[in-house]
């Protein structure tokens, strides 16, 4: 069996799965239950100044029949007394000495930071996470993302914390910034031991069409909230990658954002995370999802012959390049495996209307055919096809040639005219505009009624 345990900037944990600082880590009761279920660590719901929450706090995004593909909240940091939280932290640590308990903190003045770091240290926390991310409610008071968006202020606060911290300090970054590596570098300059990202993204998840107000609605009105859940994973992955690749960051990364199953976690790890945190998925499905997370990760490691997490932390990073480094000579084209086709013709209409008119219909069958000369190899058809492996993107170049934009720039052979082989070279074929007329109109009326000319 592979070894799932981690040592994250000095914080040890039996596995890389931590609960992110959020409602699931609001109390000792919840954290004990989570550890009992198999979670490796927990970042406690952010401790700090007294707050008051509003009622109606969450909004969700549904996609067709799937609920909570995106989630947002307008909640603040912990609304429970600090002393209660600290007492429960020490109780959890007593019961679970090998699990990671990290205190998430958010206060304002240097003195306050010193006090709260000491208090949580005394309570037995294994480390700290500085919450510079909350995009609503706290930033108006000069905390949360107001700090995360100001690298200098961030660095200063990290320095204050480092003055008293005897345990590892993680800085949690807000994605509400144009270049995530700036606060990440500031964290490093301030002396932090690690970073975690992403916190939630400023969002409005939806508008009530009858009440004319954004969700979640508080007495007829709403405000921007913080977006998270499966929908944010792509944004999180990119930011994790940016920090992992940046030469001046070089800090362990705790990956957060859209992690719901083991695959999501592995993706974060392959892009440089060495611990992962989960919030929305635990809020949606409960702590029980840890069993699937652990079993999936273990199975993956067995199959890949990875003994520890560190065997694949950042393993995909060398293959994430700038666009200018990609091989322009590489050429794939779509191929329809007719025996699998169910004849939905989604590929046809997608390519016809949304890509390059490289798929045609055939008489006597509902299976469309690729027009290879026109196919630029964009993948669209293979993405819309509902049947697994029915449309494959097959390689057409012989693999011997390699030419990147960067190489052309260096060689000073940047094109001065439109002549892209993949777009058909100089005389790229597209149908004449007028050929479009009358093609689609008849499809929008009911079939038989249309054929019979009665509508």
């Amino acid at each position, binding site marked *: 069996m592979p070894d799932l345990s981690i040592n994250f900037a000095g914080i040890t944990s039996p596995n890389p799965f931590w609960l992110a600082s959020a409602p699931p880590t609001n109390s000792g009761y919840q954290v004990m239950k989570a550890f009992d279920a198999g979670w490796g660590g927990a970042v406690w719901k952010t401790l700090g100044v007294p707050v008051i929450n509003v009622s109606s706090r969450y909004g969700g995004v549904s996609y067709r029949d799937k609920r909570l593909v995106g989630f947002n909240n307008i909640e603040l940091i912990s609304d429970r007394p600090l002393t209660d939280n600290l007492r429960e932290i020490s109780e959890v640590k007593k019961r679970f000495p090998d699990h990671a308990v990290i205190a998430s903190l958010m206060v304002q003045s240097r003195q306050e930071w010193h006090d709260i770091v000491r208090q949580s240290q005394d309570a037995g926390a294994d480390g700290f996470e500085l919450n510079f991310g909350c995009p609503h409610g706290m930033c108006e008071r000069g905390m949360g993302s107001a700090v995360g968006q100001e690298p200098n202020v961030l660095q200063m606060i990290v320095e204050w914390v480092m003055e008293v911290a005897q345990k590892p300090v993680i800085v949690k970054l807000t994605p509400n910034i144009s270049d995530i590596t700036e606060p990440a570098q500031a964290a490093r300059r301030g002396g932090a031991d690690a970073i975690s990202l992403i916190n939630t993204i400023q969002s409005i998840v939806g508008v009530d069409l009858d009440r004319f107000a954004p969700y979640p609605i508080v007495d007829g009105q709403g405000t921007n909230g913080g977006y998270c859940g499966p929908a944010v994973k792509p944004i999180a992955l990119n930011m994790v990658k940016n920090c992992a690749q940046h030469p001046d960051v070089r800090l362990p990364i705790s990956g957060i954002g859209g992690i719901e199953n083991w695959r999501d976690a592995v993706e974060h790890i392959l892009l440089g995370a060495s611990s992962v945190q989960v919030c929305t998925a635990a809020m949606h499905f409960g702590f029980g999802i840890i069993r699937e997370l652990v079993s999936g990760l273990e199975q993956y490691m067995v199959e890949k012959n990875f003994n520890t997490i560190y065997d694949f932390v950042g393993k995909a990073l060398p293959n994430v390049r700038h666009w200018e480094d990609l091989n322009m000579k590489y050429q794939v084209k779509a191929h329809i495996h007719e025996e699998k086709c*169910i004849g939905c*013709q*989604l590929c046809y*209409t997608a390519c016809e209307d949304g890509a390059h008119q490289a798929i045609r219909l055939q008489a006597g069958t509902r299976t469309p055919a690729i027009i290879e000369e026109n196919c630029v190899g964009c993948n669209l058809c293979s993405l819309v096809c509902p049947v697994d492996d029915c449309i494959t993107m097959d390689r057409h170049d012989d693999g011997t040639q390699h030419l990147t934009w960067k190489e052309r720039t260096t060689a000073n052979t940047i094109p001065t005219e439109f002549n892209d082989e993949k777009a058909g070279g100089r005389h790229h074929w597209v149908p004449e505009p007028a050929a479009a007329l009358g093609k689609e109109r008849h*499809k929008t009326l009911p079939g038989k*009624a249309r054929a019979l000319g*009665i509508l």
Partner: protein
Amino acid sequence: MAEFSTPTTAQEFAQNFAQLKPNMSRTEALYESSRCLFCFDAPCITACPSGIDIPQFIRQINSGNVTGSARTIYEANYFGNACGKVCPTEVLCEGSCVYNLQDVKPIEIGRLQSYATTQAITENKKLFTPGPANGKRVAVIGAGPAGISAACELRALGYEVTVFEAKAQPSGLTVYGVAPYKITNEEALAEMTYLQGQFGYEVRYHAPITGRADLAALEAEYDAIFLGIGLGKTTQLGLPGEEKINCVGAVEFIEELRQRQQQMQVGRTVIVFGGGNTAMDAASEAARLGAESVVLAYRRGKEEMGAYDFEYELAKAVGMKGLFNVAPLEIVGDDYVAGVRFIRTVIEDGRVREVPGSEFVQACDMVIKATGQAKQTHFLHHIPGLELDGRGRIVADAAGQTTNPQYFTSGDARNGGAEVVNAAAEAKVAARGIHAFLSK
């Protein structure tokens, strides 16, 4: 057998005749509509005789525009709600859903269709209005799927429409013939009330058009006449003993069942003649009324039955036993049916041949003949110049116009007996035909 005990209350009746396609909840509709792929030039549309834009109405359900969905359905088919429940979707839209090719359950198009239309009916959503009056009048004979569909379309085109119906209720065989486990009386009639509210045609019940005098009056008073009269009673077989008590025609048996419901009497041991869908329905219905044994007697082999496979399976599932390759010779018994004398048959060169000396009597106390409906030729002969084809069907052109130019037709009377959806779709065309004719 006795899988079903004889229903004595409305509740027991509803249990025995539980809906095959029960109404969907909002959640179920959301889940099911989410699965639809929104195929291009979707094969389900092609397979629907009324050409409903299925991916469009499913997408509308999915996006929460259920009223728009109902409009999409009704624009193509005025019996949208009934069709969702009674159509043989297995061989129509759902049978051609692309998911079948992937061995995945096809989209439940019928139930989604009824979901959207049920909501429009229940909330009495205003979707249609009569067209501006054009001063012309059309008489419609028969308030079945054909007649009512024609009436709706004609009203939309601005005609004044009067429907003459022999019976007490509209919707024709939808309420008098279709099996009760496909659609309830209340559902069938609710759609009729809804349509009449939208389009405002007049229906005269208990108003059979019977002879030349009635027809002449209509011809004088109306610019055109639409024949939506369907088919007639069960054909007589000419067997000795056919007049005995408890030897009944399937259409008559079902009509009585649909009206009397749990008050309906059925024999303990029932023999059903026939191999079509009506025979399967009658057998199923007899079983659900608590008959102890139901035997289907068919002149040919099982494979040659006209019934859809799923209808046969449905009847078998409630206990019907098949007796194949037998022909009835006589209904035996005194006043009441006591059995049927059969002779065994073989098929030679596609023909049924009786096997001499193979006669036997099968005891029973009820016979239901599902051997086809007669055409209304006697009545139709009163219409001057009206031609019928060799099988008694009214001859008409693509626009539904008969050989008497004032008369148009569609539905069972013209196609010889198909489904509700065919009658509804063809009637729309015929209404357009009337419009073209009267606009000349």
